[in-house]
């Protein structure tokens, strides 16, 4: 919690955090916030511009764009968040086991990770979609399948540094069990690192899912999704460019907010800003962590 408090001292980060919380709340309670049914067709209102009844206008089938935008939060942001949390959880479990126990366990798990990481992520996603058919859940499944290895890698590095520290050594000497050492000493220490890597890939995952929906591989027709809304507006891109604005801005704002927040997370774990007790590990991190962090895109 100290960590979050530090992060929110930064005004941009606090604003980003507020935006994300607001977007997610609206998304979760979409039926409450949406003024209209997002799938209700009004052919007489095709491409109508903004009005008091329909704040952001109507799309090519006369559906309320604002309502579709609000319902679109569910797959675009919440779905991605769920996939992200699951893959971070899986990656964390494997990373902790590999980083703490080392030896053969580590070698075997990391070779499995290497295999997973050697597939280009877009190709694997397309393969999963090819095998299981189009649909949001299949793309999220592909994310889960691909991202855990990357998370496991980074969390392992972080856990390794901490498990070499003398307080973990002392706990081992004193006879504290492995599970208790992980719970009491390693999880709190590794949590900021996990927050940083998870948030930094959150943004790219939101973009990817919008991209796949734009290509028609994600969520299917009557349901709303931001990428798909962009695709629908593409037909009138030159005659009525304003229809690209709403979903486009939504994606940009959310991804920017995520990226700013993730930057603030990184700054908060930065050695120069943190307490002196972190000094030592940060040096190792500078050498090991930075390189890997760049692989995210």
């Amino acid at each position, binding site marked *: 919690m100290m960590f979050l408090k530090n992060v929110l001292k930064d005004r941009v980060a606090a604003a980003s955090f507020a935006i994300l919380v607001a977007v997610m709340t609206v998304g979760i309670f979409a039926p409450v916030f949406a003024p209209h049914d997002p799938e209700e067709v009004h052919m007489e209102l095709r491409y109508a511009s903004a009005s008091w009844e329909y704040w952001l206008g109507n799309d090519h089938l006369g559906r309320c764009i604002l309502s579709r935008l609000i319902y679109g939060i569910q797959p675009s942001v919440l779905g991605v968040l769920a996939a992200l949390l699951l893959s971070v959880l899986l990656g964390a479990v494997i990373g902790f086991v590999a980083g703490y126990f080392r030896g053969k366990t580590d070698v075997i798990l990391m070779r499995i990770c290497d295999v997973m990481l050697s597939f280009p992520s877009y190709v694997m996603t397309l393969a999963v979609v090819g095998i299981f058919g189009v649909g949001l859940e299949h793309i999220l499944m592909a994310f889960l399948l691909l991202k855990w290895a990357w998370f496991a890698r980074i969390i392992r590095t972080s856990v390794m540094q901490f498990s070499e520290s003398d307080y973990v050594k002392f*706990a081992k*000497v004193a006879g504290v069990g492995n599970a208790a050492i992980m719970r009491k000493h390693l999880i709190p220490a590794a949590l900021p690192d996990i927050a940083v890597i998870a948030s930094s890939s959150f943004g790219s995952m939101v973009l990817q899912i919008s991209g796949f929906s734009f290509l028609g591989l994600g969520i299917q027709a009557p349901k709303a999704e931001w990428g798909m809304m962009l695709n629908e507006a593409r037909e009138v891109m030159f005659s009525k460019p304003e229809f690209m604005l709403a979903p486009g801005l939504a994606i940009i704002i959310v991804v920017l907010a995520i990226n700013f927040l993730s930057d603030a997370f990184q700054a908060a774990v930065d050695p120069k800003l943190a307490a002196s007790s972190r000094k030592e590990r940060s040096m190792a991190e500078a050498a090991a962590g930075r390189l890997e962090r760049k692989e995210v895109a």
Partner: protein
Amino acid sequence: MLHVHRVQKSYRKGGMLSREKKQVLHGISFDWMPGECLGVIGESGSGKSTLARLLLGIEKPDGGTVRFDGRNVADRKARLGKISAVFQDYTSSMNPFYTVEKIVLEPLTTRYGRHFNHHGKIDSLLFQVGLDPAYRVKYPHELSGGEAQRVCIARAVAAEPQCIVLDEAISSLDGSVQVQVLDLLKDLRKLYGMGYIFITHDIEAAAYLCDRVMFIREGRLEEMIGVNRLKEVQSPYAQHMLKMVIR
């Protein structure tokens, strides 16, 4: 009694597929008697920290045995409440998220269970290492080097072990603080009747605190001698080390 019998340890050099190994310890044997303070003297790279990890049971030797009262120290239950440690780097010796109270409490709850009534115990431990009870709520980064090392010592003696391994425990402290900590260790030894294994590169500190010292060089035991007969060392290496100090 701690019985070390022909321990060997080597680490793999280079990557995963490399067969090349670096032998760090070559068949070291010695006994540590309860209540004794044994100094282990060696230069950096002599394998003394590796030896410490083996004695503490957090690493296993490749060959040979380390037994405490007949049981293998690698067994967590065998060393529970019997052996403890103070490390060199006091900054990484304490969980930065813990208060002093929680730090000192850890070995106590481990040994006596979570519902151990610790009230008063922590105050008296802090008092014994020369710290005010007000330190209970402080975090590690708020402590100076000497204070931090005192907290580490309080933590090490908390569960009243028979043996404490001090791995370069005073090496990163200032000269005057070193003497204070050495005196503290002497007092605690009298109070609890426990013994130390004092690992250091500093002969003077070892001579000040220990009953017996052993010299380690390149993973081999060079010589073992009582502190009062330190001037009579036979091996050229020990003589050389001694000469360096006297000069």
